[in-house]
């Protein structure tokens, strides 16, 4: 069992959770993910590390309350425990010698963009961060980004309730057009990463994306997370989660992410009968 040592609500449906896991905390590098299981009947879900402390022996992740598992998670408090936490999995984000980098975080993907931006800075790159969300209340980790020695922080919301109104691709395009960046790293919903990849490709700027396909084991065993990259099938868990955004088949990724949509609604419906929080 893994004791929960931290919990913070970042927005109405987004939570940050910290777990005592000293062995994992010693190993994590930015861009890697963990698999967790809430309880004995639970499913295994992948979540990317948002922060960790090797000295204090904890790891953190951020999740959005969308389905049964994340609902169960959101009900747990400090002092409760998770049945399983496994990691760190996946190849760490490549950070060395990239130069001037734009790190784009959209929605809950911002949770991954934060440690990636930090690691990019530690590796000696110049980092501009673009953080976006649908609306002001859904923006997360802004203070944390502000505390980093960034070249610039650009905030974007779909409705203009904070920062620039529009999509993250607008400031990204401007940075590319101004010749201000050598590399982009986009982390967020698949549709956002697709358009970031497209924006950068048109402007000849390399773009790494951090994919979030469905996984079962997270160690290469099941192949649920297969993605097509440059016409080849890759496993998100062991070959990724980072890939060259210009080569990813995003339509396939988005289709594969919806495989269990109907079944998940069924599980949700069952669950909401038992759980008053959703009424």
């Amino acid at each position, binding site marked *: 069992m893994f004791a929960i040592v931290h919990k913070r609500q970042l927005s109405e449906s987004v939570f940050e959770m910290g777990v005592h896991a000293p*062995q*994992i905390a010693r*190993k994590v590098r930015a861009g890697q993910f963990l698999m967790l*299981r809430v309880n004995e*009947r*639970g*499913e*295994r879900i992948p979540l990317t590390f948002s922060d960790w402390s090797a000295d204090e022996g904890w790891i953190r992740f951020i999740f959005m309350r969308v389905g*049964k*598992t994340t609902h169960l998670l959101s009900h747990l408090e400090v002092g409760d425990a998770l*049945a*399983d*936490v*496994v*990691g*760190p*999995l996946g190849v760490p984000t490549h950070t060395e010698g990239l130069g001037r980098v734009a790190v784009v975080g959209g929605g809950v993907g911002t949770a991954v963009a934060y440690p990636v931006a930090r690691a990019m800075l530690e590796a000696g790159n110049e980092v501009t961060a673009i953080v976006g969300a649908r609306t002001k209340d859904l923006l997360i980790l802004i203070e944390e980004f502000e505390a980093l020695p960034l070249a610039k922080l650009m905030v974007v919301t779909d409705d203009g309730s904070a920062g620039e109104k529009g999509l993250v691709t607008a400031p990204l395009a401007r940075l590319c057009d101004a010749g201000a960046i050598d590399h982009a790293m986009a982390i967020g919903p698949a549709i956002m990463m697709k358009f970031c990849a497209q924006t950068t490709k048109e402007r000849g700027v390399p773009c790494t994306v951090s994919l979030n396909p469905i996984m*079962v*084991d997270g*160690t*290469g*065993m*099941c*192949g*649920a997370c*297969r*993605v*097509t990259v440059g016409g080849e*099938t890759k*496993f998100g868990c*062991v070959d990724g989660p980072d890939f060259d955004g210009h080569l990813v088949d995003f339509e*396939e990724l988005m*289709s*594969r992410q*919806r*495989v*269990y949509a109907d*079944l*998940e609604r*069924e*599980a949700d419906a*069952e*669950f909401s009968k038992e759980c008053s929080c959703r009424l």
Partner: protein
Amino acid sequence: MPPVDETGRRRPSRAPRTPMPERDPVERAQDFDEVALGYTEEQALAEADRCIQCANPTCIAGCPVNIDIKAFIARILERDYAGGVAVIKERNALPAVCGRVCPQEEQCEAACVLSRKGEPVAIGRLERFLGDYDLACDLEHRCRVEVGQDSGRKVAVIGSGPAGLACAGELRRFGHAVTVFESLHAPGGVLTYGIPEFRLPKSIVQAEIEMLQATGVEIVTDAVVGATYTLQELMSVHGYDAAFIGVGAGLPIFLGVPGENLNGVYSANEFLTRVNLMRAYEFPKADTPVWRGRKVAVVGGGNVAMDAARTAKRLGAEQVFLVYRRSEDEMPARREEVHHAREEGIEFKMLCSPQEVLGRDGWVTGMVVTRMELGEPDESGRRAPVCVVGSEHTIECDTVVVAVGTRANPLLTTATPGLEVSSRGYILTDEDGATSIPGVFAGGDIVTGAATVILAMGAGKRAARAIDRYLRDSS
């Protein structure tokens, strides 16, 4: 008591092989309960009585771990079942598992003297009888393998599948402390995630593992060696004096045909893991979903393909096709499993090779296959399938399960500098399992490529003996 002749010698029974009681195919294909019910005491006695107790038994050499088969059958005849269990446990820590899943027809039973003129003694079923007898006792009364005197040495076993468990059990007999590291949340490896409940109940696997734990084997789950720990770190920081790698060949092989990433295409690994390990057949009571196809095409001809096809049937499929590119004679699956699959209504489409998976809106709608003919034997000795030109046709289906084998998982090997592997990623060892790193041994599928439970157990045991020698020599 068995009849004796005038000289006082026992006269073995000439009765035909005692059939295994099994559940009705129609009924059993509705649920996940075990198919083969096991011998009753009476049936076990009748079958044991067929054994002629050869002066020079050949069956023992047919067993990859050389169980003293003659002796355990003699104990059954004496109704000393606990004694029979003890005989098996001298050699094999998991009798209830092996009695169910070993391919006895190719091993001990193929070597049985009776098989020359008729049907061999049903050694596997008798092993299962004893294994189940043992597990039916409460924990204190089960056969407990004697643990060697504490050697003060510590061994890390990586992977809790058949190879790792056999190695761990053997190491305890030598008195070494053993920690088994398992990457999933439950131990057992393929016994837990791969082989379905209806063929190998998980309660049996769990009970056999508990017995190992009772001898002092420590199991750490959620530990991915190569990620959570490195092998070097286990040896240098955590104080392990030696290590055994038994991580299996866990990466699924796909067909490499167009349409294979459509929704509804599963690797057998994913399909079986969702159902067995994650208990998706109980969804939504268990949280992991599985797509329940109406028409399911399973590609492959091995035991895993049979397991996947029979699982699909139990999930409610109206039609399940088994698509195999050779003929039934070449199928690597056990005859018994093929027979069970047929009984349960799996439709065999032999000599068919998949060319493309068809889809609409991202979902599988069918699979294009080409008819094959058998040509000259290939390197495996089996007749190689050759395409019949112009024979393409479509099998209508909404789900495809690919069960054409697995390959080496590079997760641990690539994180372990100095560990030599073959061009296909399998660990190179000498015949005792010693790898290129001193004190590090390996065995099972990660060395040989995908094979059987008992061969992996044999490799684990051999490596345990080599580890014991290594530890003695280095002390």
